[in-house]
Structures are given as structure tokens and as C-alpha cells.
């Protein structure tokens, strides 16, 4: 992570801009990325738990899909 670019800032900004139909002020995208990182952490944690409960070997698509709705609801502002 430290060596390379952490995330494409312009892409994140564009995505949020497209969804919000608003301008995004400076450096908000860093916080947005931080929120996304937190979301991914929660999602992967939940998916791991789900995969373990389901007896799967690793994180599968099924486990991710199962926990996606809950995690999104958790991140509803």
C-alpha cells in the first residue's frame, strides 16, 4: 500500500459526483475513501463470518452477497 497510489482520487470523485449530482469540494474524497475503506472492512468481516458459518473455505461470492444488504444498511446515512 505505501508504495503505490492508494486509490484513484479522480475516479472516486467522479463516482460521487455522478451519484450525487453535486460538486464535491476539495479533499472530501479522502474522507469518502476513508468511509469506503471502513465499508470494505465491515463487508469483509461480515463475509468472513458468513463464510465460516456456511462452512465455506474462503470468502465466496455467496457469502459476500449475503452480507451486502446488511452492511449497506449499516452504512446508510
Amino acid at each position: 500500500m505505501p508504495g503505490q497510489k492508494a486509490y484513484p482520487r479522480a475516479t472516486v470523485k467522479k463516482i460521487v459526483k455522478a451519484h450525487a449530482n453535486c460538486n464535491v469540494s476539495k479533499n472530501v474524497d479522502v474522507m469518502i475513501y476513508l468511509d469506503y475503506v471502513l465499508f470494505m472492512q465491515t463487508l469483509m468481516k461480515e463475509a468472513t463470518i458468513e463464510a465460516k458459518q456456511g462452512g465455506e473455505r474462503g470468502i465466496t461470492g455467496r457469502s459476500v452477497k449475503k452480507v451486502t444488504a446488511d452492511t449497506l444498511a449499516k452504512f446508510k446515512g
Partner: protein
Amino acid sequence: MADNNPPQQLTRTPSKPSSSQIPVRTTPGVPTLPRPAYTPGPSRTPRLLSAHNTPNPNATPHVRAAYRAIDSRRAAILTPHHRARRRSLREARETPRNFLLQLGKVLAPKTERIPSSSSSPGSALSGQQQQQQEEGDTSEELTFDISTRSRYGDDDDEELPKRPRLSLAPEGEDWDDDDDELPQPHRSAGLEDLTENFTVQSIELPRRVDPERDGRLRDSMGRLSDFPQQVQPSDGIDSGFFPPAPMDDDEFGNAEDRIPDEFSRLDSDETRRRETIGHEGNLGLLGAGGRDSDFHIEVPLGMDESTTTFMINSPTRQFEMGQASEAAATSGQGGGFAELMDQRSDSYDDNDNGPMTFGDYDNNDDGMGMDLDNREQEGSDEEMMTRNYTPIRAGRASISASALASAAAARERLGFFREEGGERGGFSKIKATKKISKHGIEYTSLPPAMVKRLAQTFAKTSGAKGNISPEALKAIMQASDWFFEQLGDDLSAYAKHAHRKTIDMSDMLTLMKRQRQTNAQTTPFALAQRYLPRELLQELRMTPPVPTKKRRKAATSSRLEAMGEDEEVT
């Protein structure tokens, strides 16, 4: 029962594994070894690794087999770690004996070995045991298994009538003593004999498991849609499950040529169809559930035509189950029986090697009902074709063959994914494709490599293995798309509420607070410190919005500010 079959081939096959192999019984359906019911065996008592200290001599053979499985598993788990310790124990116990044996060899080389009364009979066996004890390396489980196996193998080879006597013995005890669990050994012993004698080749493990899985998929995909088309002209019996086998009972290779015939026949010609239904009435009892395919091999022995199909099918199926995974990659659409089987067995794997990711998506999608319709139309001809096989197989084939085409087609027709060419290639590659938000603005989703890297790091920290399958990555990408959509909606709502046209840092802070990501203990800056790389942190720290953010936080409480500062320092 036990007399009228050749004892050599049938009874030997289960009791033949090599001496180095620890028999781990993972599934309960295996025909267990032919063991006498009431011989505890002196060699099984000194077991170090056994899960149970004193094996119940009255236990049923199944119970004992289960115990043996547990023990061997324990042995397999424990052996590599405690090898040294166990060897030292063994040496402490066995060296005098070995030493005496060697002394005996030196002193009296010509004396014959007297088999002790306590050890198991058979000179060859005792020789084997001693050999292995002299080696001192193999675990005791091994010697036990070898001894029992070889002993019973000898029994089977030499004297068959011994077994009925043993199975009868507990019965007498049972009537006299009235112990509990006593009827069980007798019955299961008889069952053991039955299965071992007649259906050694036909009993296989996956067959037990398959019908359930099949039922699951059938409900979800092909069958439901199939029903109204097929059953309504028939007369009560749900003929959708029965194969019209006796009518068109050709080789499976010819099935493709007959598709038009089948099609017209099943749709228009009702009388012939009724004929088949009447003809299969006795099969119907078995095939109605579609689940008890185990008995298709045995029971319809009286029937002439369908019997041949079943008898042909079962070995091929057995064969296909083994090879399914490797051949699945190359299996194409439709075609021969083998390919159908491959696709079926492959579809239950969680490996994402292929088109079944479609079906996987369909289970959760909203467009499921519409997919069903499409599948009904497109999958009908495939099902006609596969109706020649057993009913279960037809269901699976309809799932596997038609699901590929129809799922892809339906997906594109429904436009479930908004991107243009993303799903066209199917499972080839996830690309950053152009999507259009609800405001009509084009955007590209995040690069999958970055998402995968992020997911891998968090999967590792949350305890799973770090590898993310492509299917899982697809799901994660979808989730993150939804996340950004939701986030954009929320942020725009906050900004509009503040009569702004620009999403500000305060909106984002509000959002994170409402998401309960930041609270009294965790400030946004602490989170940033924990999760963001240093250069991004620098950006956050050096930019003018940060002081305003801090002032806003200070407005809420100055104590939290101090805590945040502390966390920043650490």
C-alpha cells in the same frame, strides 16, 4: 443369502486397502467391513489415541465403525505433532519385548514361534505385528487396522459360513439377557451382508447426497417453469418427473437427433403420451419424488427396457462424478450424456470456473421471476432432449444446459446490469465499464485491482485466507457500486439540505457520524490515521478544511478534541 454369491471378488474389495493407509471414513453410507459382531479383539485394547477409552463390546458395527473413524482421524491429526513423544513411550514399553525377541532369534533360531493365547490368531498376522512393532515407527492404529483387516479378510476367504453364526449369536443373547442395543447389531449385521453381497458396485457415496442438491436447484430454476406446460394435459399423475423411457429408449447419442420428434410428440400428441404415463405407472411410485434415485438400480429389475438404461447409467455416472471437475472446463453446450453430467456436477461446486456464476446471481436477483419465464421458453427444447434419461437427470440437464443460454440472454434482455459490454463476455474479465447514474452522468466504477487489494487486506485481517475468488470480487464490486450510490445520495441530501450545491467536508463528517463510524471515542482523524496511507493523511492535515473540521468538533466537546489529539499522537 450369504452363500449364493462368489465370495472372493465381492468380499475382498472392501477389505483390501494397502497397509500404509489409515482408513478414514468420512461418510456414513459406506458398507463397513465385514466384522464379526462380538469379538472385541485383543489387539484393539492398547490404543493410545482412541477417543473413547473402553470400547463398548455391545456396540453396533456402525457405532464401532464410527469410533474407528474418529480414532483414525485423531491419529491422523495427532501423529505428526506428537510423534517423538509417542515413540519414546512406545520404546519404553516395547524395548524389552523386542530385545527378548532378538535374543530368542539369536539363541534359538530354529524354534517355532508359539502363538500366544492373548494375541489374535494366525501366525502370519502375528508375524506382521511383530515386524511392525520392531520397526517402531508406525502408529498403533495402523497395526490394529492391519490386523483386523487381514484377519477378517482371511475369514472371508476361508470360511464364509462363519458369519451367519456370528450374527445369530447376539440374538440368542438378546432374548436371554434383554440388554439394550442388542437387537441393533444383529439387524445391521444382516444389512451389512446384504449390501456387501449384492450392491457393492452400486453403492456409492455421492449418490446419497445428490438428490437433495438436485431438489434445491430444481425448485429454484428449471422445474417450476416446466410444470404448467407439461402437466396440464396429463391425467393427474405428475408426469413431469417421469421419463418417457420405454418409448424412445435409444442410445444417448441419438437423443439430439430426436429432438423434433420429441417436441411435437410432447406438445401435440396426447394419446401417445398417456400411453407412456400408463406404462410408467409402476415407475411412478419411485420417481414421483425424484429423490430416491438410489433404488432405481435395484428395484426395477423386473422391467425390461428401462432397466437397461438404469444399469447403464449408474456406472457412467459414478465415473463422471470423479472426473467432473476436470472435464467441466472443456464441456460445451448440450451434446452427449457425459457433458450433461459434467455440467450438473460442476454446478454445485463453489469454484467459479464458469457459467454457473450466472445461476448464482439468479438466486439472489430481483429478476428471478422473469428469468424463469425465459428459462422456460429456451430451456424447453433442452429438456425434451434430456427427458430421455432418468427424471432427475433431466432436471439437472435442464438446469445446466438451459441455464447457461437463458440466464445470459435474460440478463441482457432485462438489462439488469446497466453497463453495456460488461456481462457480454460473461465470466471472462471484470472491466471498469462505463455506467450511468440515475442523474444521467456517466461514471466508471473503481478499478477491480484496487478493490481486490483492499478486500484481500481486510479478509486477511478478519481471519480468512487472503484469496478472493473472481466471483467474490464481482460481488464485492457490486457492493461497492451500491455503496457509492447510497453515499452519493446521502451526501447530496445533506448538501441540499444546507442549501449548498457542493458537497462539503461537513457533509461527509455528518455522514460518518450518522453511520456510527465516528463517535466520542473515534474521531474521523483517528480513523484516517488508522486506515489511510500517510500521504493522504498529509493531505487531510495540511488542507484548510481540517481546522474548520476541528473547530466544528470542538464545538461539540472540547474533551473529545483532546482525546482525538491523543490518538493522533500515538
